[in-house]
């Protein structure tokens, strides 16, 4: 009901470090989640690689050499 607040940010650096901390945490969590799921998928890829080729070779992704020992 009241007219909008006339005051605009004045000579303030637009820092909300709290918001930044939240966002950076979310980014880290999203990255960790991606890594965890990616890890699970890479295990699958490696298993796929270890099987004799049955389909179009182009469909097979490159194996990740770092992961191969974990799949054994």
């Amino acid at each position, binding site marked *: *009901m009241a*007219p*909008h607040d*006339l*005051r*605009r*940010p*004045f*000579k*303030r*650096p637009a*820092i909300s*470090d*709290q918001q*930044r*901390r*939240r966002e*950076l*945490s*979310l980014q*880290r*969590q999203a990255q*960790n*989640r991606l890594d*965890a*799921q990616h890890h*699970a*998928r890479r295990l*699958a*890829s490696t298993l*796929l690689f270890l*099987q004799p080729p*049955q*389909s*179009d070779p182009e*469909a*097979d*992704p490159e194996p990740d050499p770092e992961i191969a020992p974990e799949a054994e």
Partner: protein
Amino acid sequence: IASIEIPKKQWPELIGCLLNNMTQQDKPAGLKQATLETLGYVCEEISHEDLVQDEVNAVLTAVVQGMNLAEHSSEVRLAAARALYNALDFAQTNFENEMERNYIMKMVCETAISKEVEIRQAAFECLVSIASTYYEKLEPYMQALFELTSNAVKGDEEAVSLQAIEFWSSICDEEIELQEYESTESGDSEPPHSRFIEKALSSLVPMLLETLLKQEEDQDQDDSIWNLSMAGGTCLGLVSRTVGDAIVPLVMPFVEANILKPEWRCREAATYAFGSILEGPSIDKLSPLVHAGLDFLLKAMKDENNHVRDTTAWTLSRIFELLHSPAGGISVISSENIQQILGVLLESINDTPNVAEKICGAIYYLCQGYFEAGQASSVLTPFLTDIITQLIRTADRTDGGDSKLRSSAYETLNEVVRCSYIVDTSPIIEQLLPVIMNKLGQTLELQIVSSDDREKQGDLQASLCGVIQVIIQKLSSTDETRPIILRASDQIMALFLRVFACRSSTVHEEAMLAIGSLAYACGPKFENYMGEFYRYLEMGLQNFEEYQVCSITVGVVGDISRALDDKVLQFCDGIMKHLLNDLGSNELHRSVKPHIFSCFGDIALAIGEHFERYVLYVVQAMQQAAAVCAQLDANDEELMEYGNQLRRSIFEAYSGILQGFKDSKPEVMLPYASHLLQFIEVVFLDRQRDESVTKAAVAVMGDLADALGPNTKLLFRDRAFYIEFLGECLQSDDESIKETATWTQGMIGRVMVS
């Protein structure tokens, strides 16, 4: 009452009755005044679609006629002008009609030169609102509006001139938004850009520059002040963002003419003008000016006038924010002048609190610029100890009045830590950790006798938890430095548990954020803390009111699941109960819900087959959410963004669950596979989908094939859309989408040949 009953057509006689009060000549002025106020409020609450157009017209006619000088007392005219302010949104149809619009605008402009200052102010408030609501209709009136606002800025009472400046700030807001829209969208449906600011520029800028000289003596110390010079400078900054380079030649002569004058107002106004135009013009245009002026500004930090030093410090922070980007190959700071710059900043941080706060901002942006340049951040390493020491000293100052300076100092410290080059600086940050922990420990010993004490304690604890979180995140980001956190984790956790016992929601949020980082850093060792921490985790998950706390706690559950892996199982019944409750709650802010779905995926991946007991409930919730996604209003951008988040999180949940079951009980998910594939198809068909949704969708399709194997062969054969979807993803410019699609193609390929 009207706002409830009119939309339901339960009070049809109200409008007629109110209008009757206005149209009958013999009604007392007091009744007319009260009627106008009521009409204004009713218009604000309801939509014009709730009434038939004849009624809408009659209401607006009554309001606008109430502003008529010849017919009404000043009280009635004031009430009418305020009612119109509330009714402007309601007048959409009338603003479409040229004759009606002309009439409304004529009455508002006439009212803006009333004898009574309050009425003029109310009329200008209407003009401010019209500037943003009906920007595209303003063209024919702009000449008149320029004269009106210009006279008001130059000669009217402050309350009126502030509104007149706000009119131009609102026009800038509109044009900036249009320009942002233009740069992201293409096509012929763009809303019109009338370039009012560009057209008025040569008269508008001098008018604004004049206002800069009307400062008050102590305006920097009080947040409640809003005066002509502040409004004028803010508007100048917006004009600069609107027109870019064209503002520079109009402002620089003013800067040069005033910057050396003996009167402090002139020096301050010149600096403020310069600082205000640093955003908008191109780097090429600004760079020579800033290079030429930097030395002068650094010296002006010793100006005898506090106000000049304050604005100079602010201008320096703007320069570092906008013209210091070593990553982009642009910076006013070089190896030759960095020592001088930091020398001035670290000396001036001891100035009065208002100046010190702006200096914190300058240090914040200076560090940020280097961080974006990666290795170049080591430029700051030799100065890091001094910077940190001075920031802590600043945070400890007791002359700050409120806690603004202190929190600025800590926030700057956070940026300094985040941006430091870890290879060089880990010993310095390692030393900082016990200093901050010690400070947090001291807050627990503070004597609390009033609610004010409690609030101050909470603010300080929140700041310190923030710093600890940033340190944890920084040191746990490399294998070499993570052991530092592992060694300190018992003490850190013990502190946080004591902080939780203080029960302040801000602190709860900050401590929770820090604990998420700690769990990530600790890995399986975090199990040691779960016994005592679990109750606070539950409290966080149940905090509907402060939904940010709830949201962050959900994220921490994800961190803990990854850290503890299957050891998290012992806590899962409780956690899952709360998460499912949260999902079912109408009270909880909707933004938390996508995080909950993602979290299901995290838990499922951690506990594998043990997730079976939750599957029925979780899948049901996901199916309901998927149905909600399909019903969202495609014209509502905010809702569409939410829909994208929700879709992505549902896919993430399925991915976690499928991968979790893959090795032991994939058949648990078989009954839901068809629904999932159907949902993916719906999302595929949505052309507005976000890239992150695409990526999650194509990944979960692979997970489905990977986890359920040959069981999905018929499903995929029946839903051939996947071929087209994969084709689209393989053509994507986004490498990670392509990579995921290649993997998914492999998984489905394996199923199809089985």
